[in-house]
């Protein structure tokens, strides 16, 4: 009796699972484990269900850190229909391994080449699009407006002005730049921007793609500019001992004036007690005149795995995700920027500034640890940190990085 019951149940559930897949079910794997991203994702799925009631969405939400390991397993073992990942070189291993589906048709059919223009190059490998970007945020220099005013400084527009401002601040007993390099990645923001401004986007991409040796004089030129800030002590002391958040109090207390960071730092600064009037935002100043301004804007994306069972409906989902309305709503919750340039402008001051800056950018880099392969990024960022402590050892550091480069890009 119980056996037959169990068997019927089993058959029934197998039957249900079978039919569900037929009637347009898509499985989404993503890593929105923090409260805000989770809420944004829940809203997105709910809105999608209202618009497409005949497609059922099954969402597997992974832990943010665990996802990086999990995606390597599920893409081959049990691919979902849609998977979250990142743009640029971070998606390259999966594209090269044939694990992501070419979605150029979704871009063409929905006019995305135009609407998502700013992120198009970072979604393209071998002339094809491999996913849909839905959010990014800007990087730039956040500064204490009131400290600038007190010392008679206007936001620097070029390198000479930045050096002059730093000198003035230092003389007033204020460290020009806050930074915490314990977690290594904050150093990469500096390297990215200096390289983008000294050598330009194309060079930076070639470097992170392993096509240029680290011992190249153009790479060394980047560090020479950097040394102009490191050697006079324009960064706060003991930055290697602290995380990026731990450097914020120095800014709040008025001991440091500027911070090259992602837009998420604003929330931490406000939590620390700074008001919106005290915080200013500026684009990283020009260094080599004539090089078009490119920015760091880490982009989050969704992809269709090559082994997905329901690619038709997955493409419907990606098209919806790319739409101006969906992106505007989702990013309003996230506190980040929509990639779609038809989306309603964000109301927040800093986001608005970032929106304008990124919309006019020549190109967007994804951040050093996403543009360069993981192993190179780790060695590189360690080198940047060491350079910020021992700027005179630059030749030895670059030789070490070159050794790693030769090993990583085989």
């Amino acid at each position: 009796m119980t056996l037959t019951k169990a068997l019927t149940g089993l058959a029934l559930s197998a039957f249900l699972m079978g039919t569900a897949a037929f009637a347009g079910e898509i499985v989404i794997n993503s890593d929105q484990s923090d409260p805000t991203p989770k809420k944004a994702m829940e809203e997105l799925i709910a809105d999608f269900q209202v618009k497409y009631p005949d497609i059922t969405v099954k969402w597997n939400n992974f832990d943010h850190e665990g996802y990086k390991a999990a995606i390597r397993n599920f893409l081959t073992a049990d691919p979902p229909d849609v998977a979250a990942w990142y743009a640029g070189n971070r998606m390259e291993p999966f594209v090269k391994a044939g694990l992501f589906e070419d979605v150029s048709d979704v871009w063409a059919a929905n006019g995305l080449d135009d609407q998502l223009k700013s992120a198009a190059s970072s979604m393209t490998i071998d002339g094809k699009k491999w996913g849909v970007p839905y959010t990014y945020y800007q990087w730039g220099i956040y500064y204490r407006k009131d400290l600038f005013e007190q010392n008679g400084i206007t936001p620097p527009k070029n390198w000479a002005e930045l050096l002059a401002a730093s000198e003035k601040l230092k003389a007033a007993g204020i460290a020009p730049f806050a930074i915490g390099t314990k977690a290594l990645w904050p150093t990469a923001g500096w390297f990215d921007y200096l390289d983008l401004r000294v050598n330009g986007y194309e060079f930076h991409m070639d470097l992170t793609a392993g096509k240029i040796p680290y011992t190249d004089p153009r790479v060394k030129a980047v560090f020479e500019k950097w040394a102009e800030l490191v050697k006079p002590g324009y960064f706060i002391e003991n930055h290697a001992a602290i995380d990026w958040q731990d450097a914020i109090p120095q800014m709040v207390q008025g001991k440091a004036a500027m911070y090259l960071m992602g837009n998420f730092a604003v929330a931490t600064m406000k939590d620390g007690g700074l008001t919106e009037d005290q915080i200013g935002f500026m684009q990283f100043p020009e260094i080599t005149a004539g090089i078009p301004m490119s920015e760091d804007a880490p982009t989050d994306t969704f992809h269709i795995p090559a082994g997905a069972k329901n690619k038709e409906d997955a493409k419907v989902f990606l098209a919806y995700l790319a739409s101006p309305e969906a992106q505007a709503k989702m990013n309003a919750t996230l506190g980040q920027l929509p990639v779609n340039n038809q989306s309603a402008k964000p109301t927040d001051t800093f986001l608005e500034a970032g929106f304008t800056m990124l919309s006019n950018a020549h190109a967007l880099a994804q951040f050093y640890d996403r543009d360069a392969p993981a192993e190179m990024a780790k060695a590189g960022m360690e080198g940047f940190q060491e350079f910020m402590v021992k700027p005179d050892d630059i030749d030895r550091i670059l030789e070490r990085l070159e050794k790693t480069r030769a090993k990583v890009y085989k």
Partner: protein
Amino acid sequence: MPHDPQPARFWKRNQMKIAPYAFLAPGAVMFLIYVLIPIVQSIWISFQDWDGLGPKTWVGLANYVELMDDDTFYVALKNNLLWLGLYLLAIPMGLAAALFLNQNVWGIRLYKSLFFFPFVISQVVVGLMFTWFYAPDFGLFSQLIKWLTGSEVAILADERYVTYGIIAAGLWPQTAYCMILYLTGLNNLNFEQIEAARMDNARGWRLLRHVILPQLAPATFIAMVVTVIGALRSFDLVSIMTAGGPYGSSQVLSYFMYEQALSEYGYRMGYGAAIAVVLFLIMMVFITLFIMRMIAQERNR
């Protein structure tokens, strides 16, 4: 049992022979599955290039050749030796604490438990506490240094001091561990011998050196073993306090292995396994010494 004598007779005849193996079997099987097979597997993987996902490629000794040319490896090796040397300080420090606490005064139990406390709390907590202790600006230790010398030193951000800083954090619980081993040893002292020694006018240092320490030899031996092994597998403190930084200067072999094989920036299983094999060989030197000593002792008995 006339109708079925065979089994009973077989069991009776061989009972003495079989029983020890039967009792050993569960432990031996576990040891095989969880220790021996993984060791062989690790050695096998160390000859491959493998990202943990795709196919393995046989590369022979390439991983070891690369390791011999890797600067980080030598930094880690040097730090492991430092750990090994300085961690042994836990033994005399533990002995001193044990001798100090081995007296009958009111409230001694409370003191004993306070001294034992660092061993009970998790290594992760020890690491966090010392990180704050050393933290520039607000850490107690850096405040003290500032007060004494006038300038601030960020222990965990300075390549000269960082490994010593972490070892000091590790010594705190390790001393407590050695202290406990010695306290139990002190409880089992033969008092007649001590009385006799006292009558022969031995006291203080000579009493300790010639009468008490020899009796504590078993405790010293165990303390040596756990301390050496603890020093070689130091991982949690490095991971919590510095993650091998600044720029890899506090790296140790066990953390280096984890970073290469399992962290976000790694997934080089073969290379990680090669590091593990090297660490295993270093440990084997000590394990062999200990086992030889143990066998020698058992023969003497």
